[in-house]
């Protein structure tokens, strides 16, 4: 029964996901503690809270995105070798991917709200953007893993190379326009201001669409995957 | 001319029983013969239960279907009979039946080979009879013909 298959995967993959969520929280706490110990005493609260803008996304990427790259190279083959269908493994993987991205967004929202005026970001817009970012990066990473399993090491290499090239291009464009226009810091604040309060931002939408496209590509690779 | 396989790597000893796995004789026939021999040797008595096919399969690491084939052959010949729900039993008169059967097969199985071999060695009939007489005298056990 397909339903049994889905439940099985929800149960098994869910355990992994819970571990990742736990590790994310732990990492954030560790970052915060580190900042607390290294910050000047009189501004400890300010520095630590402002830092969350970096801790939360970093931890979420670390535990939400990076393990996802190896899902189709390590975990999925085992699950498929034990008789699970590709459909159910993929479907449950997608469900948890969205859930984890949502978890990241919610976490960010909570942290920012508690931090109040010291937080670099605030409001629904920033959280939604983080959700979109995590979703996008996870989807991108998964395709790399799937390609590498299906096509071999060179698939992964080619894929990463392509991504690096794209990042460089964007980075150079960004950097040039920053140099031409004004200070980098000013740009970041403008960015933050632009994101605040806007119900749906362009970045977030682009991230979600991009993520969905990558997910579709992932299915195309996985649907006839052979276990080695 | 020999019945031995070209190399002996195929034989293994399983729980004291030597199976000739080179295919000289099917395993199911060997199972049947083993049970017959045990009946002759009073290891299995008439009206006593014989091991089930599953027990035989487990004991000798063979497929139960093979064990069943061997047992069924004996059932068809009336040497064993089935008691529903309980198992297989040795029929009365089985011992005599087996002796008769083997006597009948004695000619094909032993005599023909003996004569053929003797002929290829140019042993005369007198020499052959003399050898048989000598062998019978050397036999210490009088009662039971030695069965293998």
């Amino acid at each position, binding site marked *: 029964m397909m339903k049994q298959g889905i439940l099985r995967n929800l149960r*098994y993959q869910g355990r992994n996901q819970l571990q990742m969520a736990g590790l994310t929280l732990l990492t954030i706490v560790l970052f915060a503690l580190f900042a607390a110990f290294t910050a000047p005493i009189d501004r400890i609260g300010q520095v630590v809270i402002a830092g969350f803008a970096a801790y939360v996304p970093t931890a979420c990427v670390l535990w939400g995105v990076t393990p996802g790259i190896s899902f189709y190279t390590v975990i999925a083959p085992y699950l498929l070798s*034990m008789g699970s*269908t590709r459909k*159910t493994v993929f479907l449950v993987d997608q469900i948890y991917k969205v859930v984890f991205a949502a978890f990241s967004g919610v976490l960010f929202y909570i942290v920012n709200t508690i931090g109040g005026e010291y937080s670099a970001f605030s409001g629904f817009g920033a959280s939604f953007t983080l959700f979109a970012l995590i979703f996008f990066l996870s989807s991108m990473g998964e395709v790399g893993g799937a390609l590498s399993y299906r096509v071999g090491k060179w698939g992964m290499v080619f894929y990463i190379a392509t991504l690096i090239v794209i990042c460089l291009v964007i980075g150079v464009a960004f950097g040039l326009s920053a140099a031409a226009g004004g200070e980098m810091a000013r740009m970041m604040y403008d960015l933050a201001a632009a994101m605040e309060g806007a119900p749906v931002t362009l970045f977030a939408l682009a991230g979600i669409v991009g993520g969905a496209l990558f997910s579709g590509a992932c299915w195309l690779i996985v649907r006839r995957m052979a276990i080695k | 001319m020999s019945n031995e396989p070209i190399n002996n*790597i*195929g034989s293994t000893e399983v729980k004291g029983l030597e199976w000739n796995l080179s*295919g000289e004789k099917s395993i199911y026939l060997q199972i049947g013969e083993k049970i017959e021999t045990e009946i002759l040797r009073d290891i299995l008595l008439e009206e006593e239960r014989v091991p089930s096919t599953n027990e035989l399969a487990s004991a000798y690491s063979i*497929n*139960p279907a*093979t064990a069943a084939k061997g047992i069924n052959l004996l059932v068809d010949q009336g040497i064993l009979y089935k008691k529903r729900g309980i198992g297989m039993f040795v029929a009365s008169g089985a011992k005599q039946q087996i002796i008769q059967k083997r006597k009948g097969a004695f000619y094909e199985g032993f005599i023909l080979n003996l004569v053929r071999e003797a002929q290829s060695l140019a042993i005369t009939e007198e020499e052959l009879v003399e050898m048989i007489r000598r062998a019978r005298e050397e036999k210490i056990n009088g009662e039971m013909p030695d069965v293998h």
Partner: protein
Amino acid sequence: MNNINLSCEHVSKDYSGKRVLNDISLTIEPGCIYGLIGRNGAGKTTLLSILTAQNPATLGTVTCAGEPVWENQSALDHICFSRELNPTNAYGNSSYKVKEYLRMASVYYPHWDAAYAKRLIDIFGLDTKKRIAKLSKGMLSMVTIVVALASRSEITILDEPVAGLDVVSRERFYQLLIEDYTETGRTFIVSTHIIEEAANVFEKVIIIDQGRLRLIEDTAELVSRFFAISGKEEEVDAACANLKVHHSDMMGRSKTAYVELQPGDNIKHYIEGRELDAHGLSLQKLFVAMCGDEAPMGEGK
């Protein structure tokens, strides 16, 4: 006890333009122990992968209990394919511990019998806290055996389960297999290179040769059809005139021919009145005679 069958029709598989499996059709009857034998590279593992939907066939269909297996969870729930665990897989699968692997199995095999698994682990003396990458070849085999047996799946397939096991462990495996079979009547397919030991356990035998199905037959009947006829060369040739000769050896004037009879035929017809010896062949010997003359297909499966 079990009426789930597994069959394939006209299955072929191509890898980079090369046809590694060619038009294979067969039916696995329920409640039988099958042996699958073939040389390295003959296509055994590929065939098993395709039968269990772990590898898509290029052509042909595979059905289980009347339904196609591909991406069909209810069909796949009847099957367990316990393959050789490869510790040298890439990307950190070395981090899996045996007990984690077994936990995965307990979730994914609907008929998993945890008590039986525990008993088997004790019998084999497995340390479940060890990581898969650190296991010896023998222990890897034992893990695949535990998973296969404890899965209690109606159709259980083991790919080279005794590779790496010493003779005592191998005997133990055959024992366990027979015990399980007599208790459950499951269907088993066991592929192996160690033919003669396992021959008594197989009710039927499947022979794959160079990507083709050579035969699928009752073991005892198959073995009864093969003979080695030996004697003087001319006599042997005359006797074998109407027989299928798979292989022959010469030594001086003496020749041995390895022949196959048709079902129902009798060897006596061929050697009567001639100065010839004929004796039966073991499963291993007949397999070598049948498939031994081509160059090996190379390492790996």
